[in-house]
């Protein structure tokens, strides 16, 4: 697979089909990889592919300094490629300006990441070049099991759970930086007139921040799990993201990252949306 990947990347650069290839390169030790940005065909041998290719490289597509780089190719796992769909729908990128090199993926991480157990995109659905054999999707039946488990408790228990989790937040915003869909040039936490969210990392501000972070991804989160992976305090951020994905799926019948033509759920509405909540 690695040779195939390098070959394709080289070909893209040699033929001038892209100006830049964003992929994984060897990291500081064999269990790490790091993003590499390749402009010359001869550098394509730096590309690697293994189970340590965690990063969602589509985050770089919205970087202003890379937007001017011309046409770009990006190495994607199936989960990462879902972000391409959302970014296109939100007019952050043009589908034509990005060549998606989709890797067939049997899961990353050691031990295997939780998200990989329920992966239905082991072969990327959105890609221009597929590398590796087509793999059958895995069942998503138990995807929301951890959400259900937490919901089995009462409100006070959930409050205590999240209070403890969020109290560890150090407001480093790594979750935001790693997220391919958190691309606002001025984030709400950086707005200080008025100051919506307290900047110091005390539990009150942490709660507000985490509510907002999760909410802004409602109907958008593609479940790549980068936020949770990069969190230095190991806050189970995906649990909140999954809860919202579950609500959006149940209420609006929408799953993020699959259909490029379907309207965005939080930017559209149906006159017959549920009125149950309202008196």
């Amino acid at each position: 697979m690695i040779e195939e990947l390098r070959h394709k990347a080289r070909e893209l650069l040699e033929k001038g089909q892209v100006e830049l290839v964003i992929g994984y390169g060897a990291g500081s030790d064999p269990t790490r990889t790091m993003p590499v940005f390749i402009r010359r065909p001869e550098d394509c041998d730096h590309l690697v592919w293994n189970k340590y290719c965690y990063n969602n490289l589509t985050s770089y597509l919205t970087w202003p300094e890379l937007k001017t780089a011309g046409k770009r190719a990006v190495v994607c796992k199936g989960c990462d490629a879902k972000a391409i769909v959302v970014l296109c729908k939100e007019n952050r990128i043009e589908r034509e300006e990005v060549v998606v090199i989709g890797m067939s993926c049997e899961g990353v991480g050691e031990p295997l990441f939780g998200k990989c157990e329920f992966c239905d995109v082991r072969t990327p659905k959105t890609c221009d070049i597929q590398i590796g054999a087509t793999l059958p999707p895995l069942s998503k039946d138990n995807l929301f099991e951890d959400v259900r488990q937490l919901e089995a408790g009462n409100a006070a228990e959930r409050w205590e759970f999240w209070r403890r989790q969020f109290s560890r937040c150090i407001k480093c915003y790594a979750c935001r930086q790693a997220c391919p869909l958190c691309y606002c040039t001025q984030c709400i936490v950086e707005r200080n007139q008025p100051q919506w969210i307290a900047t110091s990392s005390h539990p009150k501000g942490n709660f507000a921040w985490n509510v907002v972070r999760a909410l802004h991804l409602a109907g958008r989160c593609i479940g790549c799990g980068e936020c949770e992976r990069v969190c230095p305090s190991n806050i189970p951020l995906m649990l909140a993201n999954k809860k919202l994905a579950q609500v959006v799926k149940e209420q609006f019948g929408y799953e993020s990252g699959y259909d490029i033509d379907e309207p965005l759920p939080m930017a559209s509405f149906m006159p017959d949306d549920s009125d149950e909540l309202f008196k």
Partner: protein
Amino acid sequence: MAENEWKPKIIAFVCNWCTYAGADLAGTSRLKYDVNVRVIKLPCTGRIDPLFIIKAFEQGADGVLVSGCHPGDCHYTSGNYHARRRWIVFSELLRFFGIPEDRVQFAWVSAAEGAKWATLVNEVVAKVRQLGPFTAYRELETTEVLS
């Protein structure tokens, strides 16, 4: 009512065109309802950012009421439809994070429903009174970092 009895603080975010006019009607009709509600008028329910609710709790609210035009009656055609989707998602998130459901109430009150507004406020105040002060949220400010 005893002088030193705890009075719940309810913040109501209402739209200018329906609920605010409805509350106005309740007033001109001389309807009596609980005085614990502080009304904040906005152009439309679509203008109400979920952060407003978070901010209200941060600033000491014990309960929040959000109300606007009935679906189909929005002054701006579709503001309340968008708001409805947002509140469906947001209320589930709050519930998931452990904020009691009765602390946040969503409603549609039209300009002709002064009586509905009065009953609604009474209901919300009664529910929040039962829950007591929202100290859990306010304690966030004073709690030490746990691991």
